[in-house]
């Protein structure tokens, strides 16, 4: 078996759900605080629309990046895959919004100043969203901690028979297997390429067909892995959340609360600023 990270040039840029090991203020913050903060920033990102407040939010996100010790390289790897989508959203909005002063018009295409500013906001929101998710959640929180946080936050739901523990376990295992399955996909594609498969050329239909032959063995092997993992978990006496202890139980310290309040205040500040500018 190749190690993950060893043989996956095609898929090495998948950074979704990747943890970035480091010691930083945000890494050490209680994941529940980070999850709640994430909720706060989600709202903030989608409420604000004034350029000034967007700039201020960018500044805050920059501060977060620094406190999480995320390098520009890692940031770029996270943002890069989303740029085509952001561009697409930008263009769709530019061409479809017809309100405002017309800047340019040719046949059915009209570009307005309002359209451009709306489109830019949309694209920026998407990018902010991705960066926030990464800084507050995936890059600074291990999947197991993440699922601990969700389990703890949603614990009240267990009273109405929602299988909270099971769901969080499923989530953390899914995240743990992303790199493994990415490596596997790469291996299958290489094996099929060496048998003459070609994923890059040909018509769209052909390309889709090509990927189906990748998906089948990938599914089969995922089932096999799931089976083996289930046995391995069984062998290690897994029996649900009841009576389970934790090596690193979540502990809310005053520092966590302080970090939470500080960043929540910053978000409120941006939103207030935005409203006052309208």
């Amino acid at each position, binding site marked *: 078996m190749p190690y993950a990270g060893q043989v996956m040039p095609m898929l090495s840029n998948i950074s979704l759900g990747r943890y970035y090991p480091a010691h930083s203020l945000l890494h050490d913050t209680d994941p529940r605080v980070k999850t709640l903060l994430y909720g706060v920033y989600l709202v903030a990102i989608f409420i604000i629309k004034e350029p000034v407040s967007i700039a201020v939010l960018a500044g805050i996100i920059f501060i977060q990046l620094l406190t999480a010790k995320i390098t520009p390289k890692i940031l770029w790897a996270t943002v890069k895959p989303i740029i085509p989508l952001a561009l697409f959203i930008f263009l769709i909005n530019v061409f479809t919004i017809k309100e405002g002063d017309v800047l340019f018009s040719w046949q059915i295409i009209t570009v307005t100043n309002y359209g451009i500013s709306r489109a830019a906001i949309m694209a920026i929101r998407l990018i902010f969203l991705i960066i926030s998710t990464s800084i507050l959640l995936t890059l600074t929180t291990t999947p197991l901690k993440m699922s601990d946080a969700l389990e703890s936050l949603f614990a009240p739901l267990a009273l109405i028979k929602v299988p909270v523990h099971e769901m969080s376990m499923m989530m953390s295992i899914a995240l743990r297997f992303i790199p493994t399955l990415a490596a596997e996909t790469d291996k299958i594609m290489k094996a*099929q390429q060496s048998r003459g498969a070609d994923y890059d050329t040909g018509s769209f239909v052909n390309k889709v067909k090509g990927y189906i032959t990748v998906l089948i063995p990938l599914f089969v092997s995922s089932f096999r892995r799931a089976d083996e993992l289930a046995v*391995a978990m069984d062998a290690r006496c897994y029996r649900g959340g009841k009576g389970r*202890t934790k090596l690193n139980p979540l502990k809310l310290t005053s520092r966590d609360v302080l970090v939470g309040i500080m960043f929540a205040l910053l978000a409120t500040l941006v939103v207030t600023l935005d409203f006052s500018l309208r």
Partner: protein
Amino acid sequence: MPEDPNKIVVKDVSFSYDVDEETEGKAPRLALDGISVSIEKGSYTAILGSNGSGKSTLAKIIDILEVPDSGKVVIFGKDTDDDNLFWDIRSHCCCVFQNPDNQIVGTMIEEDVAFGPENLGVPNPELRERVDQALKDVGLFEYRHKETMALSGGQKQKLAIAGALAMHPDILILDEATAMLDPTSRDEFLTLVEKMRKEKGLTLITITHDMTEALRCDKIVIVDKGKAVKEGTPEEIFMMNDLWKYGLKRPVKFNFAFEIAKLTDSELTEDDLRSTETLIASLVKMLRKPGLKAPENVPSPEKKTDDNDIIMSVKGLSYVYPGSDTKALDDVSIDIRRGEVLGIVGESGCGKTTLISHMNAIFRPHEGDVIIHTKDGELSCRNKKDTMKIRQNVGLVFQYPEYQLFEETVYKDIAYGLRKMNLDKKEQTILIRDAAAKVGLSERELNSSPFELSGGQKRRAAMAGVLVMKPGILVLDEPASGLDPKGRHEMFRIIKELRDSGTTIVLVSHNMDEAAVNCDRICLIDNGKIKAVGTPAELFVKKTADELNVQLPRITRFSAMLRTELEEIYPDINFCGNCFDPEKEAKVIVDAVCRAGDADA
């Protein structure tokens, strides 16, 4: 009747995986068929058997991962039928499975080790102590905050051991836990496990296909078709002459010793097998018996392939993985001769797979080039236009190719490559049948779903999918890994036949024994560089091997001891070369002794 509290007792256990009603009328296939085994507390037992014999199921029954359909399992006096004892029994028995990736639950190393004791409800700070101790025991303590995915295969298996030790088990079961490791990590892993066994008084059960590994145990149980057919000390078991019937064979040195006994009309006894020293002593005695007959067909030094007929040249190849600072390949140059079997040997992660991925343009060279010499001229891996032609000329079979089968039938799966070549149906059929015949697949197997085949058959079906393109060069990455001795034998027979029919073969392996027997030349790779290229006879001479810091094949190490003894007795003895096949090596030894004896007389 109270059961012995110092034994694992499995009594008349039957178990079947297909319990669904669909098999009405047909008796379900039994994975275990009235098996009875008893294992002493604190012992070290190997369970041997062919693929699909029921070994792993037996392990699962002992850990109550499966509940027997009938029969009784009592672990140290505790009956597994008693629901109140269920968790007690399971928590004191731990398993380490074959595939490291499929048993790691945690993303971070210490999180994974903690998973078991967390499930047991061990409170802090004891939990923390257990995790730290287990990590120290296996030597991964410094890595505790690292990601599990960053570990190598051998380290991942050590992590699995740490996860087991943290549960404070009485029984540790290794289910082919070393199958995916290279020889160095294998030794390290077994030494570690054996040390843990001594320190913690574990009962150790190991399921393995490696006969030499089984020699390290106190006791061996052979499982065949769901029954325990033989039980005994390694010496007793390897005295048996019908091991092949169970898909097994003797460890290399015994194989060699029995061949010498046969050639000298002598008998080996259990006592002879007890240790290497006693074995050497009795072999010397056999060889000094008067009236020794020289064997026929003493193998002569191997035939040479033509140095000038080059089919592929790798020229100054270097490769760096994106995001990495070290070179996976560093200025690698080698010429592959037409019709040879070239072995590429090295430890995991040395660059073997990266090298072969360049051979059919799956990786495009960053620096250097790979040139394929065909009848119609030269093809360069740098040239994008040649890609399709290169892939037809160079067939590449990755490790565990059976995991990549996907069509409804084996026939269609083999046809996959051909469909991209626009051949008519008739031509396709001929090629497919031809490929299937080469790997020994029957008509019935061609029409069945690939998922119904056994492990060895699946592997051969996947190979046929590459052979169908009639490649002049076949590159195989660890073609025999995970197979039982019989399956391995079969695989190398196929490889030899392909070579004899003119296919050039590049064989990647970390098994020195098999590489030495099956390759014409061997290319040693270390840290992305070629360390040496030569015939097995050139490389596996003690002096050269020491200089290169490679392990000699087991047969050579053992035979060298015998040769030293013989040289003291017959100062003029002259061995004609080294052979790596135990049977051939035995002939070389007997022949040399005969000639030396004649000279003496």
